[in-house]
């Protein structure tokens, strides 16, 4: 009898126990609740697909979907742009910037601040009557009346996007730099000898070789972005003001569950969110790797 592998199961048991209790069980329970009208206390009654039907016709959920995309999209473009530009500068063999460790730390710092502090900070900076931003703009004579940043749908969404960019570009930068340092110097030297300019080196060597890293950043950022909750919750009144523009999908889920006690419906919203995340992750994956399979690499 060979029972060499039996102990292996014991070794993985702790992980599985934790995983079952804290991940699988809640996920399954949420799935069950999405078919009920559970209100948080008392018994849950099965209501079939009613919650999902409601979800498909819920204008507030659709609004939340587009809000989330708008806020995440603007943030992602800015964040990646900034990270790539910085990576380009710092990895340039001709410039050879010093103090990269220092800048890396500085860029990453905003990411270490807890969200509630960030929200408080920007709440004060963006304040209508007494905010530093308005005071500065008025001193410079750019505006005559203070702008109520968090009371206009567009500026409120843009504010969130910019805050997210500020918080996350350092993180992306570090990951991109890690990717860049993994690219052999030979390519760059060869490019230098062949007389390639900066943009050519960047777009023809760095970007293609960074593809897996970029894909990784994009997917993690997308998943994080679709779960956007804390900033919109803390910056305004927590139900998506102004005019529903900060109503994101997870905020909507949270309010349905914990404010309005529609746990059943909130569970359906959670599964809606899950399906959306799944679809978009699959899209990105396909878009990034699909083409490569069709065209076998030429050596």
């Amino acid at each position, binding site marked *: 009898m060979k029972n060499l592998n039996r102990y292996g199961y*014991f070794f993985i*048991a702790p992980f599985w126990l934790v995983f079952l209790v804290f991940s699988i069980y809640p996920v399954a329970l949420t799935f069950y609740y999405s078919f009920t009208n559970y209100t948080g206390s008392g018994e849950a009654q099965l209501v079939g697909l009613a919650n999902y039907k409601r979800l498909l016709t819920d204008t507030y959920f659709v609004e939340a979907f587009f809000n989330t995309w708008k806020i995440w999209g603007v943030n992602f473009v800015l964040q990646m742009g900034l990270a790539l530009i910085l990576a380009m500068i710092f990895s340039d063999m001709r410039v050879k910037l010093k103090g990269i460790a220092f800048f890396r730390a500085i860029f990453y710092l905003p990411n270490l601040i807890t969200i509630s502090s960030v929200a408080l900070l920007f709440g004060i900076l963006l304040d209508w009557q007494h905010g530093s931003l308005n005071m500065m703009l008025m001193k410079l004579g750019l505006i005559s009346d203070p702008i109520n940043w968090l009371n206009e749908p567009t500026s409120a969404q843009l504010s969130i996007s910019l805050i997210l960019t500020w918080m996350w570009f350092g993180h992306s930068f570090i990951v991109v730099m890690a990717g860049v340092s993994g690219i052999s110097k030979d390519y760059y030297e060869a490019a230098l000898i062949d007389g390639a300019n900066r943009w050519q080196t960047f777009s023809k060597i760095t970007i293609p070789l960074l593809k897996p890293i970029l894909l990784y950043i994009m997917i993690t950022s997308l998943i994080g972005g679709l779960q956007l909750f804390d900033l919109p919750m803390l910056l305004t009144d927590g139900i998506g003001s102004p005019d529903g523009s900060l109503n994101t999908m997870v905020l909507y889920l949270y*309010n349905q569950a914990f*404010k309005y006690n529609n746990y059943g419906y909130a569970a359906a919203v959670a599964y809606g969110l899950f399906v959306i995340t799944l679809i978009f992750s699959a899209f990105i994956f396909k878009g990034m790797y699909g083409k490569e399979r069709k065209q076998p690499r030429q050596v």
Partner: protein
Amino acid sequence: MKRKLSIFLVSILLVGLFAGCSSDSKTSGNGKKDVDLRIWSFTDELKKPIKTFEEKNGVKVELTIVPIADYPTKLKPVLESGVGAPDVFTGEIAFLKQWVDAGYWENLSEKPYNADKLSDKYVPYVFDLGKDKNGDVRALSWQTTPGGIYYKRSIAKEVLGTDDPTQVGEMMSSMDKVFEVADKMKEKGYSMFPDEGAIRWFTQGDNPQPWVNDKNELQLTDEKMEYMDYSKKLRDNQYTALAPEWSPSWFEGMDKPIKVKEGGKEKETQVFSYVLPTWGLHSVLKTNVKESVGDWAVTSGPSPYFWGGTWLGVYNKSDNKELAYKFVKMMTQDDEFLTSWSKETGDVLSYLPVTETIKDDFSDKFLGGQNNYQFFLDQSTKITPGIVTKYDQQLDTLYGNAVQQYVTGKKSKKEAIKEFYQKAQNAYPDIKVPKK
């Protein structure tokens, strides 16, 4: 050897995994022996009463304080399962109505508590709020939290010619009169309120109705709709200092002039009054005001209102209900304890036998010697009981949101109300919303 080592390692892993759980159950297991009574609350307010209770009865009480934001979510699973549950727990007005109906609190109308007998000993609205949908008492409260308008005496004297609370109250006894005062304030460069949100407590007007009635219908009374216009008027006529509640400028305005920018101009203005309840005096004004101590007074607004409040009751699955109710009794019906408590903290009590004897010799230095106790007691008896519903907290927020849309000129009144109806329906699919 290998085998033994493996078993050893696995057991270390497993022990490590369950370490968290086991140490927890140990303390609660021991707790049952060492502690006679366990209490959960969301403030440290009960610390002193518990000490008194321990000394009086020779028992040991354990108080668990959970911050208000997490309180309902942490308490609910404990009450559902009964594991590690408290014997006594408090409830805040925001979720009180939900809880009295959820059945976690022991029915105090039954024997041996017979709380129904106490009904005429309490401020009516306070006693009424502790009842469930069947009219059984589930929770009691020691305090009452009616509100008023706190104003600065010096400004009142300068603009209105008097700082006497009764006379100033008379000048603000209706919304129209409030606007008259506001106009006078503006002439002299003062702001009536910090911002238009201040008057939300007077939305009921003289027609207090619950948000959702017995037939499960959403009721937006004419008075509540008028409140939209009042808010807009405050904003449009520049009667306020544009300092939203709890914002840094809101606090700043209590003590010194604040800057307001409007229409391309910047002006400095002093805020005349703050609309706050009993606890606003002790935990908001007194903690933030340094210079104008003694320059304040409190008076009534267009209609009586209350804001906040803490109730407490006995957990219905507690093993120690007798002692638990003894604590509730001390907090809510003990003449000796309540008298000293009230004198120490200035808390306005809802237990009338005690308030009757102590109300006359109160005076607060912060309010220039005014007897605010008497004032608040008068206010509390004017509050209509039975209009609080479990929907209030959220519907108030949603309606406040609609009002804000109208005030800032983003939506017309009709559109704002329509959106309020839609959002209310979305939040509470069960209630009937007028189709307009």
